[in-house]
């Protein structure tokens, strides 16, 4: 029997109060099992990022239960030793005033006891090699000196450094071009294979989700409207929102918008 990593039961998250109340996540029930790659797919403002932040313990549900390994998330530092994330914009994730290498090393601060300096250096080198960047390439460099694709790889290198059990990837490929996207997907697959990670992949591109995931959740206006295996969801979509998402991808072989 596989262990449940995340278990959400009638989760609701609202912002504001009174007349201006906004329900970001609306009565969501799901579970994510150990070693799975799950994709959350939906258009913008459908609540997928709020759900991601809930998984990181940054938001608490307004009502309902949200459990990590059977317990609610209380100790953030302990939680982040096991659950880490990759965000959309790598430039806003790194401090401009420190070199990248020193920031990768600083990631060890999450541990109760830091490994020795030599070991930290070695692990940083290893993880840089894992994302195909020679350590000498970023020696003494600051975040703004690298391109978007390289920075996104630095974020992934940080995951290789920390080796968490769960990775929340919040639109890691929406800022980069198609070549770099294929690259980053390769590294995510590598992470999964080498570290046996559970990955929650958040995206608005159902094509991407189809390619990486074991299970798909389709979200719309805070609700999960459909879930199932990628084959099921893409070939026999039940919800109109899934059909919409599938139709809106520009594909070379299909009619998309009629030009007048």
């Amino acid at each position: 029997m596989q262990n449940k990593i995340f278990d959400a039961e009638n989760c609701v998250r609202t912002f504001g109060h009174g007349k201006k109340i906004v329900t970001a996540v609306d009565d969501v029930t799901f579970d994510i099992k150990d070693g799975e790659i799950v994709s959350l797919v939906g258009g913008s403002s459908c609540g997928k990022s709020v759900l991601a932040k809930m998984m990181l313990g940054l938001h608490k549900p307004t009502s309902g239960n949200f459990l990590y390994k059977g317990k609610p998330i209380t100790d953030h530092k302990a939680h982040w030793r096991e659950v880490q994330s990759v965000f959309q914009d790598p430039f806003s994730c790194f401090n401009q005033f420190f070199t990248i290498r020193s920031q990768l090393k600083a990631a060890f601060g999450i541990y109760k006891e830091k490994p020795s300096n030599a070991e930290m250096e070695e692990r940083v080198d290893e993880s840089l090699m894992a994302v195909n960047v020679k350590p000498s390439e970023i020696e003494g460099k600051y975040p703004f000196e690298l391109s978007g694709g390289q920075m996104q790889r630095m974020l992934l290198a940080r995951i290789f450094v920390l080796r968490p059990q769960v990775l929340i990837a919040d639109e890691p490929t929406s800022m980069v071009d198609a070549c770099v996207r294929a690259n980053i997907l390769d590294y995510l697959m590598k992470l999964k294979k080498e570290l046996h990670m559970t990955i929650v992949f958040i995206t608005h591109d159902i094509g991407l989700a189809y390619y990486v995931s074991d299970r798909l959740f389709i979200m719309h206006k805070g609700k999960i409207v459909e879930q199932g295996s990628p084959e099921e969801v893409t070939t026999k979509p039940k919800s109109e929102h899934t059909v919409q998402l599938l139709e809106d991808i520009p594909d070379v072989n299909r009619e998309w918008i009629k030009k007048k």
Partner: protein
Amino acid sequence: MSAIFEVENLSLHYLTRFGNKVHAVNDVSFTMEQGEILGIAGESGCGKSTLVNGLMGLFIPPLHPTSGNVRVGGESLMNRSPKDIRQNVLSRKVSMIPQGAFNALNPVRKVKDIAADVMAAHMKDMDRKHIYERLKERFDLFGMETEKVLNAYPIQLTAGERQRSVIGISTLLNPQMVIADEPTSALDVTTQKVVIKLIFDLLEKGIFSTMIFITHELPLLRHVADNIAIMYAGQIVEKGTAEQVVFDPRHPYTKALMGAMLSADEGQKSRKPTAIEGAPPNLANPISGCRFAERCPSVKPDCKNKEQVIRIVGDRQVRCEYAE
């Protein structure tokens, strides 16, 4: 039909503070006819956005023209001051739809004021009241709640509304030529479709007719553009009709780009998207030979020494000696 937009051997460079030149755009030539939509695709950092600045004739240091010429309706845009360009060319002849809609709008002004300023700057004899009326007429075409959008601050709008407002402002003065620099790459697929529909609507209504559409999504270009030019390291490596480039690529780089595409169609899961190994050459150093030689899967021994030139292969332009 006569060519409305001509680019001849355009080369652009950035001057760094150490006196080095970075040749971001090299030897780009194309002509466009009235009503044509040209798509330009390429990976990040290949000089797409630099080319846009060059095409508008807007040379703000550190960007400088090296050589070449750009003509709109016969009028040259080279060697003119930024002030002259802003007053006489932008918005009327050539207009640009910028990349990030949020960065393009002043956060402390209402959308209607931003738009009215554009009109007021070019039509000095019009009073504010008339301008607002004209604005309302134009924004009514966009399928949004006109009153709400015009009276909102940029932060109160959704990403799609913001992008549509920016397109509206860019095309207010019915420009001859629109250059759209990645207008949809920050949007989700549903909003992207809405924005593209709006662009098609405006084309149909004759607000503007000629467009350059820049993006890195080749499947999107297939639906939007008539002709596609693929850029790599500052050069156009292949140019042909949309069908030719997408379904029958000839240049090795175009082939590699198509291999990196994803699709949600049935039975595609086994077909892995392949990344192109390596990185594009550093344009600050002088380059001899083919620029793609380092990463080319079908590289020949003399590729690294021989400069490649555009030649015609099967009705399209290809910058590769060995393409069939």
